[in-house]
């Protein structure tokens, strides 16, 4: 039963699931263009911040609260820090909802991604911190993949950064499972600013 649920969740959160995630860099493209992220070390520090006290922790907390049955849609929308961030999470949430609905798990469109995933995953017999860890892993893997292409970094270097984030992914997921929506906090002013600056970046390959 748990193995079946794990396979379902792995499919939903795999890069092959059609969310269009590859089009979003969560502000990383701006940071690369500005020379703030130029090597694997910069990338690791950038991702660790986002994961542990930025969009990662916020999304994981929203996801866990949604799994508990809470109505998190408005809070998720209100936490968006810029127009592109709103687009990033809602476009992926809608793409996710369409596909899982077609596969037999109905989820409404127009929700932020962690809310849509949380609604879909309510029926899975998995612990919330496990679901959140896989979600965060997918989020970080997508950003590593973006960085490998555009910093650029070697594939192995990128995978090493991701592997080194595993402990922080587990910690953040475990923490998120204990938090209420009101406990969500953030301290990523650099990443928030980058996400806004991306809107006026002259040459853009990513949508965020």
């Amino acid at each position, binding site marked *: 039963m748990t193995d079946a649920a794990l396979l379902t969740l792995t499919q939903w959160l795999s890069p092959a699931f059609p969310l269009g995630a590859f089009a979003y860099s969560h502000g990383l493209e701006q940071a690369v263009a500005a020379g703030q992220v130029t090597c694997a070390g910069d990338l690791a520090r950038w991702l*660790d911040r986002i994961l542990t006290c930025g969009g990662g922790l916020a999304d994981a907390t929203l996801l866990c609260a949604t799994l508990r049955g809470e109505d998190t849609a408005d*809070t998720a929308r209100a*936490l968006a820090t810029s127009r592109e961030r709103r687009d990033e999470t809602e476009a992926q949430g809608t793409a996710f909802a369409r596909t899982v609905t077609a596969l037999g798990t109905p989820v409404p469109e127009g929700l932020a991604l962690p809310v849509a995933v949380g609604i879909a995953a309510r029926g899975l017999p998995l612990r919330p911190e496990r679901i959140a860890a896989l979600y965060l892993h997918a989020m970080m893997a997508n950003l590593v993949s973006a960085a490998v292409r555009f910093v650029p970094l070697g594939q192995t270097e990128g995978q090493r950064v991701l592997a080194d984030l595993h402990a922080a992914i587990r910690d953040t997921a475990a923490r998120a499972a204990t938090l209420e929506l009101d406990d969500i906090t953030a301290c990523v*002013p*650099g990443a928030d600013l980058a996400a806004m600056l991306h809107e006026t970046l002259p040459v853009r390959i990513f949508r965020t």
Partner: protein
Amino acid sequence: MLDNATTDLPKLQRTRGAARVRLDAAGLRDLHQSGSAKAMLPKMHGAPPEVVFLNTAGGLTGGDRMHFALNLGPGARATGTTQTAERAYAARDEVAEVTVDLDLGRGARLDWLPQETILFQSARLSRRTTAQLAAEATLLMAETVVLGRTAMGETLTTLDFTDRRRVLRLGRPVLIEPLRITGADLAARGAAGLDGALALTTVALVSEGAEDALGPVRDIIGEAPGLAASAWDGRLIVRAMGRDALAQKRRIAAIIERLRGAALPRVWQV
């Protein structure tokens, strides 16, 4: 016994204060103040009322509790600000708590423009700002946090600061900015975090058509470093971060003046 005496002492010194002001379209309706919180309404000679809040204790320390509230009736317009920068001093165990409640009736407009909050080494402050907007109400708000006495070159290493800013429209959250800065955040390296910034500012305009101001605001921002804007769904957000708190305050001042179509409150020290 001696231990008890020393631990009891700070409790006596804790500051309590509450100031509540209610305005309607015709002007002041109600003003309550207690403890070390005060609210003043300087003569405005025809301009919309300005409410100036003040903590007469001169700053915040562990265990202090301050409450400011500003209530605008339907169609009322006002500016809310603070007499001086708010200083949060070192605290040993207890956190200082500040609550700000802003209530805007239908079609009301509030410019909530407190002066900056200066956090001293080892400060512990939890602030919660909640704005409740009725239909067609407009809120402009600006919050600046300064990390340490920058003129003295103070570098913070220990801090416990939480600043929850929430705007609700008809009871539903439309904007949540839950900033939290601890010693770990101050120490963290990398450009996604504080990255050495000593001043953080967020300006938010929440109103129908707030997006229309994005072009003019971006014109003011130009190529200035550490400053950016975005607008969507009836909100416009400007963020700034940098090491020069005064230069940042001046840039933000120009943006605020553009967004409110009026000069800054006179108490602002720019």
